[in-house]
């Protein structure tokens, strides 16, 4: 990989290491990320388009998209609110146990998803600590899509907190002071002054959380109940296809999830680029 190939007229690189870092990055991305993907596409090419289309538009699979997307959307929404609250509290206030709370935020990252799944199912089943409280109120969590959304929210909460937190930390005090000195009440100031600063990170974090939720499997199957058309998630349908030795079918469904996820990630990256450019006057 010669750096000459990428040189634009009139730009010279002051810093060294372009070739080396480009080499490592491209090699790694090719070998670790892209090459294995060929396995997936290799399977896809075994299908004709009509077969492919039939698999991915099967009524039960479509129902699983609905369940997955719906629950992921609810989870992302919960996380947007809850994550924002946590990030705010962690950045803005001092209180006993703050450090502990901060550390707790990474727990869902660190906990194996299967363990999280079993534990959540234990807690929210009708005879679990939480289920015992909620079910008499007519609120069933385990084995409904609420449980799915809950498990998704659990595994993806760090994405929101950890993306919003640094931005909130870097928000200059003067912005608050300026808003207050102009007579704005807390609510108005938060909505009209602070939120606009946080939007990019909140959307990014929520988007990442959503994408993560789409692919989640281990944490969900235990609490989902897996009723056909009602609580079957797409990852589970992939799993079922695998059990049937139907690699092509599994790959076809996986390709749909992958496509949605990648498009979302790309949108997030592009949108973030735009936003940053506006705030920094075209230099971003």
């Amino acid at each position, binding site marked *: 990989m010669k750096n000459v190939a990428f040189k634009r007229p009139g730009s010279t690189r002051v810093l060294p290491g372009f070739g080396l870092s480009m080499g490592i990055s491209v090699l790694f991305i090719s070998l670790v990320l892209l090459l294995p993907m060929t396995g997936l596409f290799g399977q896809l090419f075994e299908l004709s388009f009509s077969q492919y289309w039939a*698999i991915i538009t*099967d*009524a*039960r699979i479509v129902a699983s998209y609905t369940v997955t997307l719906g629950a992921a959307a609810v989870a992302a929404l919960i996380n947007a609110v809850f994550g924002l609250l946590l990030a705010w509290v962690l950045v803005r206030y001092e209180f006993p146990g703050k450090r502990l709370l901060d550390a707790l935020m990474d727990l869902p990252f660190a906990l194996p998803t299967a363990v999280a799944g079993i534990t959540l*199912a*234990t807690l929210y*089943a*009708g*005879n*679990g600590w939480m289920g015992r409280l909620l079910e008499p109120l007519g609120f069933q969590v*385990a*084995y409904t899509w609420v449980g799915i959304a809950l498990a998704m929210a659990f595994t993806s909460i760090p994405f929101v907190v950890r993306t919003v937190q640094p931005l909130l930390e870097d928000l200059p005090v003067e912005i608050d002071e300026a808003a207050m000195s102009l007579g704005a009440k807390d609510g108005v100031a938060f909505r009209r002054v602070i939120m606009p600063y946080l939007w990019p990170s909140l959307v990014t974090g929520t988007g990442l959380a959503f994408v993560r939720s789409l692919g989640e499997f281990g944490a969900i*199957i*235990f609490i989902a*109940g*897996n*009723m*056909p*058309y009602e609580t079957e998630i797409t990852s*589970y349908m992939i*799993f*079922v*296809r*695998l*059990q*049937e*030795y*139907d690699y092509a*079918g599994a790959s076809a469904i996986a390709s749909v999830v992958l496509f949605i996820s990648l498009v979302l990630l790309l949108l997030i990256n592009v949108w973030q680029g735009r936003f940053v450019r506006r705030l920094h006057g075209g230099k971003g």
Partner: protein
Amino acid sequence: MSLSYPFRRSVVALAISAGLTGLAGNAMAADRELLNSSYDIARELFAAINPEFQAWWQEQHDEEVEVSQSHGGSSAQARAILQGLRADVVTFNQVTDVQVLADAGLVAEDWQQAFDNNASPYYSTTAFLVRKGNPKGIENWDDLVREDVSLVFPNPKTSGNARYSYLAAWGFAEREFDGDEEQIEEFMRTFLRNVAVFDTGGRGATTSFIERGIGDVLLSFESEVNNIRQEYGSDDYEVIVPPMSVLAEFPVAVVEANAERNGNSDLAEAYIEYLYSEDAQRQLAGFNYRVYDETVVEEFADDFPEIELFNVEDVFGSWDELMETHFANNGMLDQLQRR
């Protein structure tokens, strides 16, 4: 945990060195090593049988061997072998999963003839686990389609034992309605609608039934419902074996391609033969599997009620056929569950 620091450190060191030896090969040292790939609830079973086999082999051949175990869903295990897991023998709970290996040429085509009883050293059937005192009065398959009964068994698509539950119910209906397809399908539709939770595997279903308190009946292998009852308290649950049910074979085979490569052909053969020995059969019966060895059958006669067992192939034709009609994508199962 009130461990002193040096002790803790030694545990970590021990664990890491164990991991490093793991990278190099086996955790134990033995002359030869046999890998048995098995279904996921057979861990304790083979943990009990393997040492006895190792001792027996040592006695016979003066060679120290080690049997390693790999457990997982039967299909997942077969898939792993297809993709290169170098198991020497398979001890599965699904005939189809061994057949897949045979189709790929890893297992001899006539594997069912290689050992006695369709290459199935032990068998079981589908039975019911109900709550104490059998409050819903469950006795037979037609009790399961009552409106007030809710069932727990895993998804037949992902779990072998649930496939047997489905087939057993179908077999019952076939007899009951004398082959009237409409009535059979209606029966099956109700049967499936009564399921409260479809877990991915037997373990999940058990958890739902026992720990979450969901459903009135748990359907599983007779061996497993008995194990569960022993595990979770004989007083709280009862095992009901219906008068008619399906014969569930536990097929075994030598994965010849791998065994040859590993130089384990003799060992693999002997291992499977050993499962037919009286000692092994006694162990198996102890784990609530039905066996063929007559001495052992007599010893355990009280534990296994005599019922009518029908053979899957007799009712449904070949396994390939029935997988295609019932469990394939858009097969009968999917149609029955369609809304």
